[in-house]
């Protein structure tokens, strides 16, 4: 059973030589990927393409331990993945920052988002071995056919490498007399020798399968623009009033008691007093911010508020009040009068009142009844903001809902009175334009304020806008 003679020829010889060259090269690569472990180095299979073109999927990176203090940008590092515990990442060091190392995949448009701590560095890549990691990649991706194909290809290469056979009359040197042993098979070699070579080769391949894969990961980041989140200067209607310099500011958020707290600059001495009856506290108010959405409802017959600290003859002032009503009997929203403790005043002006048709009027007395009245009616059950300002220089101005609805410079002086600020009720008398049926206001009030200055149209508009 000698081998056929064609296997002893030049053609078979050449094929075998070439196959052995390829197998030998593969064996060397395998050895190079595995043997460094003997001196404490590490090998890792590149599992993805983010280090293209430097490393491709299936390359084996041989990693040398390194003193992280000596690292310079440009080195390719094998590190513990900062984003996925238990995984390895193979990327290039681009910058050593104070709080970590910044890495980037050569194929990634941007650096990795997470910094790597020096302690997580396994080492610097010293050598890249192409191809040998491919089986590991296929195994990780559960791709059976390439694995099978590779196995068949290796088997074929092995077969081809053993194709050439010396003639039986030319026994290998050093092994005389073994040329024609009974173990010969059709392939013309001792079966044990072929099996031995096959086992060595396949175990080397299996070793590479066991190499840890380094995810040289692909990544992309999409960011929002720089989002600026400004915090409002004003959180409540009271803040708007404070910024305008309110001396008296009654938020009217009380739920019980007879004291309407003054949060304006005049302090608690200017606290107002609720009438003992006719006031329902804690009803729904305008949208004046956190903890400022309540109001008080006055019944139109007894409910009112007043201050108890005398004020001497204010000649420059502004008053402002949020109101909500459906009354057709009018009534005083706010005014200045000389009677204490909520009584009916004999001297009274600087007042804002509703007419029976729901129009807003602002009156100042100066040896005559000077008033401006809005063209529109506001007794529609919605929240409205009435603002009146007065000074010698600017005369009378009346705003509703932030907009000027009436003005007059016919008088530059208000009545010389010492008195109190009155809210919801005081004398109106028979002589004012559009005099209402009721001096008591029936409806809800909130966020009432008094200023020692003339509010600008901008400040008035801001007060209205805040609650919209």
């Amino acid at each position: 059973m000698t081998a056929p003679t064609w296997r002893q020829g030049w053609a078979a010889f050449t094929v075998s030589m070439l196959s052995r060259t390829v197998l030998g090269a593969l064996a060397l690569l395998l050895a190079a990927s595995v043997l460094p472990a003997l001196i404490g180095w590490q090998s890792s299979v590149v599992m993805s393409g983010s280090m293209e073109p430097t490393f491709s999927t299936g390359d084996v990176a041989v990693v040398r331990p390194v003193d992280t203090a000596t690292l310079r940008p440009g080195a390719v590092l094998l590190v513990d993945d900062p984003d996925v515990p238990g995984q390895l990442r193979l990327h290039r060091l681009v910058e050593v920052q104070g709080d970590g190392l910044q890495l980037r995949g050569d194929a990634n448009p941007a650096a990795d988002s997470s910094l790597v701590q020096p302690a997580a560095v396994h080492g610097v890549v010293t050598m890249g071995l192409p191809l040998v990691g491919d089986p590991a990649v296929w195994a990780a991706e559960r791709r059976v056919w390439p694995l099978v194909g590779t196995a068949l290809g290796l088997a074929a290469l092995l077969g081809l490498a053993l194709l050439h056979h010396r003639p039986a009359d030319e026994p290998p040197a050093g092994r005389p007399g073994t040329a024609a042993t009974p173990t010969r098979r059709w392939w013309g070699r001792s079966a044990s020798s072929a099996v031995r070579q096959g086992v060595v080769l396949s175990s080397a391949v299996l070793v590479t399968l066991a190499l840890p894969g380094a995810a040289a990961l692909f990544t992309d980041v999409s960011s929002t623009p720089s989002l600026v989140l400004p915090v409002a200067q004003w959180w409540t209607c009271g803040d708007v009033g404070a910024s305008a310099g309110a001396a008296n500011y009654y938020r009217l958020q009380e739920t019980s008691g007879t004291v309407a707290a003054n949060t304006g600059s005049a302090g608690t001495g200017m606290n107002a007093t609720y009438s003992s009856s006719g006031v329902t506290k804690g009803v729904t108010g305008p949208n004046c911010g956190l903890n400022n959405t309540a109001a008080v409802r006055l019944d139109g017959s007894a409910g009112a508020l007043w201050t108890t600290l005398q004020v001497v003859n204010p000649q420059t002032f502004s008053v402002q009040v949020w109101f909500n009503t459906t009354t057709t009997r009018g009534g005083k929203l706010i005014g200045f009068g000389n009677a204490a403790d909520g009584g009916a005043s004999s001297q009274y002006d600087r007042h804002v009142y509703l007419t029976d048709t729901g129009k807003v009027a602002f009156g100042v007395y100066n040896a005559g009844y000077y008033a401006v009245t809005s063209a529109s009616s506001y007794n529609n059950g919605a929240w409205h903001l009435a603002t009146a300002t007065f000074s010698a220089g600017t005369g009378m101005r009346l705003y509703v809902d932030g907009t000027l609805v009436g003005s007059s410079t016919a008088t530059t002086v208000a009545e010389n009175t010492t008195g109190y600020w009155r809210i919801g009720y005081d004398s109106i008398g028979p002589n004012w334009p559009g005099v209402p049926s009721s001096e008591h206001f029936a409806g809800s009030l909130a966020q009432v304020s008094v200023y020692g200055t003339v509010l600008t149209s901008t400040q008035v508009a801001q007060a209205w806008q805040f609650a919209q």
Partner: protein
Amino acid sequence: MTKLSVRRPSRRATRRGALLSAVGALVVAAALVWQSAYAGFADTTPALTASIGTGTIAVSNEVEGLGTVTLPELRPGVSYTECIIVTSTGSKPAQVKLYVKSRTATATGLTSNISFSWTAGTGGGANADCAGFVSNGVTVSSTLSSFPTTFGSGYLPWNTAGGATPESRTYQVTYSLSTSAPTSVKGASATVVFAWEAQQR
């Protein structure tokens, strides 16, 4: 037999051939290794590569590139809601997570008093409008100060399949200033950049 009719290499030639294949194997192996080593250890970072031979990971959102956007003023008790569409166009399967890329504030304690709630879902989102948005039921909430800043701890993981068809997700964000925020933050401002990062999975 035709034994003599086939030209056969001499024993000497066989020996030389064996040597030749050993040397050849060494040369081929060395060439492969050295070539890769050369590519890997040039001490420069290659220029940005837009196209990746073996696949892409790409994520975008409809508001990126707008420069700086100033949002409406915050005050306690008021919250705002907007929607943003994020699109993945990568060819490879990826996981997308949301985190804060950068944050600053002009007042101490502000970032711990601004809260964000993010909900993932579908629909809506054009021009930040949430009309038509349908939540997928997952919402995460955090103050700005404790919002994750890395992919690893990022929020609302979204596994994309990759491929030729772009995949989109709508993110609804609601943000507010705490009702217990100190008055010292009045008039201050915070600046934040959110990022959706896609990592190959």
